[in-house]
Structures are given as structure tokens and as C-alpha cells.
């Protein structure tokens, strides 16, 4: 059957490391980058006789997430043991949730190629992370660092609702934006704070789901997209060759761009879950849920709608400005100071010059040397015609490098105020016309280009401080009027 007849079906499992200072079941620190095993306490290394005690903040993070995606928060959920043997899992089981997760249902809206689509969530549950195995340089032995063991994770499982690698990447990015927005995860993918597993299968549209293979541990959106693309094409080719897909766990090799099956025993996935007798059921009261609900920030989707409605921004602009909470806050402070009538101009500057500068200098918007009030001051001067857009870039640069406290101060100090005095401008234009008789002649002979040359000369003579529109009008008057 031809390639075009196959539909790709993708579901994602994302492990988001929660922003707590201590571990999910112990009082050891979760800070990244500590000396090996210096943050692994008796509970984390599973010394006999220790007992887990659940971290309230980890639960609060799960509740925040559930509320943000419109899911059900279970009034009662249960922790279970997931049993398997690996040296970086000291207890021989991972404490997770199985039958009764803390969060059930919910959805995220993604946009791909201008089309909106809902991706449903199956569930999100709390669990502990494992330690790290270091396979190199220990004379044939494996080194184990248990600092990460017991770090709280929220595993967020989607329904198999995505139909392309691009949709899967859009979903992962949306989720990444959301967990940072609500402050439950720092989203640092290099440090492993946000890890994706992708379940990929192919089928003919309308047919039952095909057998899936799971791509493990994708730690960038680019790899996620590449891996899914490769995997789907591989599965389609297998089916076309008449071979059946066997369920498997695969790894993506970024160097070759290929996925390959992990060698593991067939029964490795028999985890024998059962309720953990060390942990009583987790109860979440309606009061606690309401308390958290009251403390939730405005969510990106709601803010996007508000930006479109209140500031008349396009869906594209509103989406870009609400991609990160800090950017949205900066924009809103700017527009509040500059006036809602200047919203589009504010949006252009935040997404244009400011974003480009931050990007070039690899700075976070929170660390921008130019505050929202300063940018608002700049925008206001463009809007009221004091300076042109071109001069505004010069003022922006000056403010960025700390020269002058406000746009007004820079304009004043550098003498950048646009010439609005018609008399003064007329004199300059008369001089330009007198100095360029050839251009004047050419224009009168019908050469439109000569006009632009004269505008350029006038702008140059005013060092860019003339209002270009005004220059145009005056020139036209003088050239076409009585000579």
C-alpha cells in the first residue's frame, strides 16, 4: 500500500521534574549539580527501616497542573510500587501511581500551520525519579549517583491524538510553556527537567490502532520531531515489505538520526504494580483545591484571548507574546505605560528589537537592561511623532547600553527630536533643491527615481530627524507647484 495511505498515530509521555527544594518522599535537597551522592539520604538509598513521607508542595504542583489543563483532581489517589531491578533504583521498585492517579483527563490546544487542535490528556501522576548510572571509566564497573533518586516527577500522559511529528513537537512545546508558566517545572531540558517519550504507530485511517513502539528519553524538541519522523517512515516501510511491527522500546541516536530497539528481555515490562503499603491514600480536600485555584496565574490561553480582544492584536502576535509568562508580563507593563492605543507598536518592539537583542546576547527577558517603562517611553515618542522609527532604534540602543534613564533623556541629550517646524524644514529642503539641480531636472522630465534621491538628501541633511512624510509632502509641493 502506498505511503500516503498510512496515518501516523502518536501519544506522548512527558516527565516534568517538579520545582520543589526537597525530594518527593525525603528531606534531601533536589539542587542540580551537587557532588555525587551528597544529596542521597537514608530514604533515597533505601536503607532498611526507613519510610517515605510525601512532600506537600509536590502534590500542590500536580493540583496546579490539573487545574491548568481542565482535568479532574482526584479527591483520593493512591501510590503504587512499580517493581523492577536496576542499580540506580535502590529499593527495587519505583513509587508511582497506577490505578488512581492524582490528575485525570484534561486537554491542551495546539496550533500547527494555523490550525488549532485539541490534544486530550489521559492522566498525570506523581512519581519519584531514579538515580543515574555512569557507564564510563570505572574499570569495567558502573558508577551510581543517587542524588536524583527521589526527585519528584509529574508524568503527563496524552491520548494518541497526534497525527504528525510536527503536531507532537507542538504539543511538547505547549506543555513545556505551560509547566513553566504555572511555575511547577523549570523546563531545563539539558538538565533533564523535561523528558519526552513518544509512542508511535501507523495505520490506515479509520483502522484500529497499529502496534506501537516507544521512543525513550527525547531531550529536545528537534530530536523529538526527527525521531518520530524516522520511526514512522521505518514502520511504514516494514509494513510495505509485509513485516509486522513488534512492540518494542527504542532509542533515538541523534548522530545517525535513526531509532533502534533496545535489547531487553520480553518480560521487562511486567512491573507487578501494587498499592504501596508504606503510604496511605492521598486525600485532596475541596478547600485545598480552591485555595490553589485562587492562587493560579492567568493562563496563557486566556491571556492570548484577552490580548486579542483588549489590545486588538492578531492571533499570531498574541500567541507569540504569551509563549512565556515573563514576556507576556513585560509586554503588558509596556502597554499599560504606553497606552492601549499603542499596543500594536508595543508588540512590535517587544517581539522585534527587544527579542532580537535578548536572543543575540543570550539574555532572559527578566535580565533585560531596558525596562518595560523605558520601552513604553520610547514607544510613546514614536507614536506622538517626536522621533521616527529609525531614530527610535538609536534611542533603543542608547537605553540598552544604559545611556540615559528614559527615552526623553536620550532624545534630549543627543538632540534627536524630529524637526516638526515647517519653516525650518522648508529652508533645509530649499537648500537641498538648490544643491541638486540635476535631480530636480530629472524629476521634472518624468523620472520618479529622482524624487526618492531628493527625499534621501533631505533626510541626510536633517540627520534623519525630519518626519519623512512631511519631507515628502513639502518636496512634492515645491517641485510640482509654481516654479
Amino acid at each position, binding site marked *: 500500500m502506498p505511503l500516503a495511505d498510512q496515518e501516523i498515530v502518536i501519544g506522548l509521555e512527558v516527565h516534568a521534574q517538579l520545582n*520543589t*527544594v*526537597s525530594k518527593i518522599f*525525603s*528531606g*534531601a*535537597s533536589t539542587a542540580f549539580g551537587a*557532588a*555525587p*551522592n*551528597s*544529596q*542521597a*539520604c*537514608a530514604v533515597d*538509598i533505601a*536503607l532498611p527501616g526507613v519510610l517515605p*513521607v*510525601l*512532600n*506537600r*508542595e*509536590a*502534590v500542590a504542583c500536580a493540583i496546579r497542573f490539573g487545574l491548568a489543563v481542565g482535568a479532574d483532581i482526584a479527591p*483520593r489517589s*493512591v501510590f503504587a510500587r512499580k*517493581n523492577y*531491578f*536496576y*542499580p540506580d533504583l535502590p529499593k527495587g521498585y519505583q513509587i508511582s501511581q497506577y490505578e*488512581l492517579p492524582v490528575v485525570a483527563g484534561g486537554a491542551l490546544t495546539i496550533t500547527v500551520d494555523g490550525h488549532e487542535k485539541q490534544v486530550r490528556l489521559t492522566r498525570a501522576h506523581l512519581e519519584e525519579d531514579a538515580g543515574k*548510572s*555512569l*557507564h564510563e571509566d*570505572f574499570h*569495567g*564497573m*558502573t*558508577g*551510581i*549517583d*543517587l542524588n536524583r533518586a527521589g526527585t519528584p516527577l509529574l508524568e503527563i500522559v496524552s491520548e494518541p491524538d497526534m497525527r504528525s511529528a510536527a503536531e507532537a513537537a507542538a504539543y511538547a512545546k505547549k506543555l513545556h510553556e505551560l509547566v513553566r508558566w504555572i511555575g511547577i517545572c523549570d523546563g531545563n531540558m539539558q538538565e533533564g527537567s523535561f523528558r519526552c517519550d513518544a509512542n508511535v504507530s501507523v495505520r490506515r485511517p479509520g483502522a484500529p490502532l497499529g502496534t506501537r513502539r516507544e521512543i525513550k528519553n527525547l531531550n529536545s524538541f528537534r530530536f523529538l520531531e526527527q525521531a518520530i519522523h524516522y520511526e514512522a517512515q521505518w514502520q511504514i516501510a516494514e509494513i510495505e515489505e509485509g513485516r509486522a511491527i513488534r512492540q518494542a522500546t527504542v532509542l533515538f541516536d541523534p548522530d545517525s538520526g535513526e531509532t533502534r530497539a*533496545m*535489547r*531487553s528481555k520480553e*518480560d521487562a515490562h*511486567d512491573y*507487578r504494580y501494587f*498499592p504501596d*503499603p508504606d*503510604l*496511605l*491514600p*492521598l*486525600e485532596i480536600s475541596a478547600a485545598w483545591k480552591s485555595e490553589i485555584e485562587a492562587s493560579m496565574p492567568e493562563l496563557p490561553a486566556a491571556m492570548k484571548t484577552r490580548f486579542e480582544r483588549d489590545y486588538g492584536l492578531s492571533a499570531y502576535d498574541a500567541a507569540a507574546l504569551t509563549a512565556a509568562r515573563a514576556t507576556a508580563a513585560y509586554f503588558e507593563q509596556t502597554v499599560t505605560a504606553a497606552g492601549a492605543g499603542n499596543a500594536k507598536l508595543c508588540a512590535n518592539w517587544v517581539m522585534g528589537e527587544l527579542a532580537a537583542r535578548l536572543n543575540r546576547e543570550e539574555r532572559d527577558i527578566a535580565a533585560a537592561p531596558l525596562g518595560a517603562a523605558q520601552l513604553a517611553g520610547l514607544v510613546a515618542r514614536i507614536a506622538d511623532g517626536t522621533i521616527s522609527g529609525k531614530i527610535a532604534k538609536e534611542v533603543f540602543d542608547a537605553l540598552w547600553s544604559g545611556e540615559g534613564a528614559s527615552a526623553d533623556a536620550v532624545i534630549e541629550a543627543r538632540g534627536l527630536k524630529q524637526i516638526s517646524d515647517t519653516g525650518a524644514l522648508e529652508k533645509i529642503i530649499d537648500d537641498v533643491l538648490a544643491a541638486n539641480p540635476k535631480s530636480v531636472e530629472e524629476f521634472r522630465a518624468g523620472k520618479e527615481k529622482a524624487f526618492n534621491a531628493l527625499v534621501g538628501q533631505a533626510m541626510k541633511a536633517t540627520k534623519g530627524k525630519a518626519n519623512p512624510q512631511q519631507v515628502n509632502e513639502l518636496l512634492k509641493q515645491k517641485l510640482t507647484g509654481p516654479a
Partner: protein
Amino acid sequence: MSLSLDQIRRIADLARIALAPGEAEQTRDQLNGIFGLIEAMQSAHTAGVEPMAHAQDLAQRLREDAVTETDRRAAFQRIAPQIEAGLYLVPKVIE
């Protein structure tokens, strides 16, 4: 319900328990005895009774998110068979 010898061997394998010759049969008989008890309990009328997740009908207490543990690596690693550069060393495992 009763377990087959194959199932016993598989469970033992998953639990990393080595069974000596004859032990599989013995274990099967013991486990099937336990299943017998469970079967007897299953005849109890439980329709409409919500399953418990724990023998105690209580909810768990939560702790505040604070670092309360100090670094005790040196003490913990005194009983480790092999360590290096702060790491616990184990026979090579790689998938």
C-alpha cells in the same frame, strides 16, 4: 485459580529468586494454598464496598517542602562494597 510451574518460574525470575530443583513444585503448592484462602475470601459478599488501598482507613500526612537532611555520604559509603569518586560501583550494567 492455581499457578502452573511455568508461572512460578517466571515470578521467581522477575523477583530474582533462584529456585533449587524441587523448590518450584514446593513453592507452587504453597502459593496455591494461599490462593485457596483468597478464593474462600472472594465468596464474601462485597458488592458496593469500595476497595481499600491500605489496611488502615486513614489518609496520609504530608510534610512541608524543606531540606532537612545533611550530607552523610561518608557514613553510608562505609558499608558499600566498592566506591570511587563518590559513586557506588556495581557490576557493569548497560542496555
